C-alpha cells in the first residue's frame, strides 16, 4: 500500500508541475513536429510513390528522438535543489517512485503523439488499414522506450555528459522495439507483406514485460548504491 501511495504522490506532483510549466510537453512537441516536417521533406520530395515504405521508419525515429529530448527536460527539475536526493532520503518506495516517473513521462509522450502521428499520416500520405493494431503497437513501443529512458535518465541525472550518454544507451536498447514497431506500422499502413502483425505485437508486449521487471529491479538497486 505504501508503494501505491508513493506512486500516486509522485505522479500527482509530476503532473501538477508539468501542468504549471508545460516544459516537457512543449519541448517534445516542438522537436517532434520539426522532425516530422524535416523527415517528410527528406523522404517524400523525390520519390512520392514510396511514402508507405518510409513512413514507418520516420514515425519510429520521431518517437525515439522526441522521447529522448523529453527525458532530460523531465529530470532537470529533479536536479534543481537536489530534490531527487531529498526524495530518496525519505522512506519512499523505490518501485513506486520509478513507476510514477514512467507513467508521467509516458503520458507526456502519448499526448504529443496525438499531434505528430496524424502529421506523419498526412505528410507521407498514408492511411491506416489496421488502426487498432497500429495503436496497440504505438503504445507498446512507447512504453518500452519510456522504461529504458526513464531508468537511465534517472541514473545519469548528475553525470556531466548526460546529454551524450543518454542517447548512446537508449538507442541500442530500443532497436528490438523499433524493428517491431516498423514491421507492425508497415502492415498497418497497408503494405502487402505476408506477415502476421500479431506476432510482432506479442513480441512487443513480451519485450515490455521483460523491460518492466528489469528496469524496476535495476532502479531499486542502483539508486541506493
Amino acid at each position: 500500500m505504501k508503494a501505491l501511495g508513493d506512486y500516486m504522490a509522485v505522479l500527482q506532483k509530476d503532473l501538477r508541475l508539468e501542468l504549471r510549466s508545460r516544459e516537457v510537453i512543449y519541448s517534445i512537441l516542438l522537436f517532434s513536429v520539426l522532425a516530422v516536417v524535416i523527415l517528410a521533406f527528406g523522404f517524400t520530395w523525390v520519390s512520392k510513390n514510396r511514402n508507405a515504405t518510409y513512413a514507418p521508419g520516420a514515425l519510429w525515429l520521431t518517437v525515439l528522438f522526441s522521447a529522448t529530448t523529453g527525458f532530460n527536460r523531465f529530470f532537470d527539475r529533479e536536479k534543481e535543489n537536489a530534490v531527487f536526493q531529498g526524495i530518496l532520503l525519505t522512506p519512499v518506495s523505490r518501485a513506486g517512485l520509478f513507476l510514477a516517473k514512467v507513467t508521467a513521462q509516458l503520458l507526456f509522450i502519448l499526448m504529443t503523439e496525438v499531434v505528430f502521428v496524424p502529421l506523419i499520416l498526412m505528410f507521407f500520405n498514408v492511411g491506416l488499414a489496421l488502426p487498432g493494431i497500429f495503436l496497440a503497437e504505438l503504445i507498446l513501443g512507447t512504453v518500452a522506450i519510456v522504461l529504458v529512458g526513464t531508468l537511465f535518465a534517472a541514473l545519469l541525472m548528475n553525470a556531466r555528459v548526460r546529454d551524450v550518454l543518454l542517447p548512446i544507451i537508449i538507442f541500442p536498447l530500443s532497436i528490438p522495439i523499433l524493428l517491431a514497431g516498423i514491421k507492425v506500422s508497415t502492415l498497418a499502413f497497408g503494405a502487402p507483406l505476408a506477415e502476421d502483425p500479431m506476432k510482432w505485437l506479442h513480441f512487443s508486449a513480451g519485450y515490455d514485460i521483460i523491460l518492466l521487471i528489469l528496469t524496476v529491479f535495476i532502479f531499486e538497486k542502483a539508486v541506493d548504491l
Partner: protein
Amino acid sequence: MPEVFNLDEVGVVFDHRYALYRISLAFPPGAATVVVGENGAGKSTLLSLLAGRLHHHAGTMQKNEALVGYLGHELMLYEDLTGMENLAFFARLWGRAPERSELAEVLDAVGLSGSHDKVVRAYSRGMKQRLAVSKLMVSNSRVWLMDEPTTGLDSRGRKWLYNVIRDAVSSGVTVVAASHIPAFVQAVADRVVVLARGRVRGVLPRGDGFVDQAFEMAGEGGA
C-alpha cells in the same frame, strides 16, 4: 537505548584523499550534537555519511535508526510548487497523510503564514530555509541531521530555530548539526564534536566555556 550511530575507524575518500580519516564516534539518542570545524574539516561529509548520501571506504558504521531526516545546503524543495504543496508531498512520502489544516499549522509555526500558497521560487532564502525545516517537522524521523541550518536566517529566525531544535530534542529527537556559529552551539548543543582536516580533534560535553574551547580546538578562535 543503543547509540543512534556508531562509527568505528571510519574513513571516507574523495579524489584519492581522505575527507574523513579514522573517525570513531557514537551519537547518543535524544541529544543534540553539534559538529564544528573550519571549512573543509569534514563536517558536511560526516553528515552526508550519516544520512546515507555517501558510503564509507574504511572502518565500520552502525546505524540503529531507519528513518533519518536530513537538511543540507541544498534545500531539496520544488521551486515551482507552493510551500503547502511541497510540505504535503514530502509528508506523504514519509508515510503520513496530514490534513491541510495540520500542515497549515506547521507552516504558521515556522513563520510562513500568508505564504502557504506562494510558489517556493517566490520565497526568500530565509523562507526556503524555514520551509526545509518544516519538512523535518512533518517527517516521522526521530533523527534530524542539519548541515548549517541557520543559513539564510536573520537573528529572529535563528532564535526561532534554536527553539525548534531544543523542543525537538526535549521530545526525544536526536539532532546532529554542523555549524560554525558559536551562538548556535551555545544555544542547542548537548555536546560538541570538533573536526579538523577530516579527523576528530575532540568531543566536549556541555559545560562552562565549552563553546570557546571547541572553536579554539577547531582553529577558529573563540566566540
